[in-house]
């Protein structure tokens, strides 16, 4: 029998509430609010309370999906990235860089968000970059 409490941060929104994962024999079975965390002081919203459910959900995507012959199919990261790059290039060539927009995330680091805007402005060539906190 192995029971563990693992502190973590909620992955849903940008608030970053402190959570505790309850792990029973290697299986994630529950989420608790962290009482001493300064962001949430022991409180959570309904999404946070149910974090463990989406982690272990069988509906969760575990690899990138690519639409082939009208159906979404599992694929490798290499193929997914290559396809996205090819399509982006084709769109930019045909409709210009302003036809592309990039939405960054509250749940990645500042540095990753910086990279996202750099990529949008320098590689794609548009100012169409925004963030999920404003959606």
């Amino acid at each position, binding site marked *: 029998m192995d029971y563990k*409490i693992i502190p973590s941060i909620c992955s849903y929104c940008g608030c970053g509430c402190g959570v505790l994962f309850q792990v029973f024999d290697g299986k994630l079975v529950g989420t608790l609010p962290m009482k001493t965390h300064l962001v949430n002081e022991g*409180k959570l919203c309904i999404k946070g309370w149910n974090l463990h459910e989406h982690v272990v959900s069988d509906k969760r995507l575990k690899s990138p999906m690519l639409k082939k012959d009208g159906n979404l199919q599992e694929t490798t990261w290499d193929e997914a990235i290559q396809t996205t790059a090819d399509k982006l290039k084709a769109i930019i060539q045909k409709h210009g860089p302003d036809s592309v927009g990039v939405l960054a995330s509250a749940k990645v680091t500042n540095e990753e968000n910086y990279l996202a805007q750099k990529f949008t402005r320098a590689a794609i060539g548009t100012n169409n970059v925004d963030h999920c906190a404003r959606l």
Partner: protein
Amino acid sequence: MEEQMKEWPEPFSTTGGKTSMLVTMQEQVKEWLDQDKVDLFLGYKMVQKHPLPHCFTKDNLDEVDELIAGQARYSLEKIATKIAAERPEIKIGLLARDCNQRALNVLYVWNQLNPDNLETINVNCCPSKLKEHGDCSYLEPEQVGSFKKMIGIDNIIEVKAAEEFSQEDRFNRWMYEFQKCLKCYGCRNICPVCFCEECSLEHTDLIATGSIPPEVPIFHLVRAVHMGGRCIDCGLCEDTCPVDIPLRLLYRKVNETVEDVFGYVTGTNADQSPFNLLGDEVTLKIKPI
């Protein structure tokens, strides 16, 4: 994040060193684990500067040196209930404050835990402050602001004082409180004595889905009714409620009625509850009022 953290003094230590009480507690736990009196011990340990619930086992006896009483209060008995549901034969040791002990009594009554498989080490009730206020019913509660006092309900008000509001005033005040509800289910999720497989609060005929606040006042009153003979006034629900609804006041009121009618004081012992429908004996005895 680290520099933001407050220092949490260990309740048993004023100097930062280990007090003899803490050492005694750790030795006791080591002995229990070593001699297989318990298979695991639920207590607290500092992890990333936070006092977190922790499960100590025989495989890692040295770790017991890090056992603390913890300044934050979690429902260790709820964790025990979860473990027992999966592995009923396991012997569980538990660090118990007064509220944990009361909850254990209720869990024994309702056959969620077997007292023969449980050992407790009793510690003082919330010996230090988690926040500026105590979460426990025995400690000084949080002060509420003047707006809430004026149109809502002060969380620390006594049942008697709350009953002095006129009917209409009382109704409006409660509705003000209830309509803040986010339907997070935190009050139910954290409650040590909420263990039903199917919860009425998730029953779509009773509580419609798709909007917040949930149906008021049904949502809160359903929960309140179910807390009669169950709630041990630990305060965890109110503490986890993101919108500070004075939930305990409701549950205190229903338990007052339970006491008046059945002479049953919830959580004080592991005697049969008047509401228990199992067994040969009729336990529902009404007291003459």
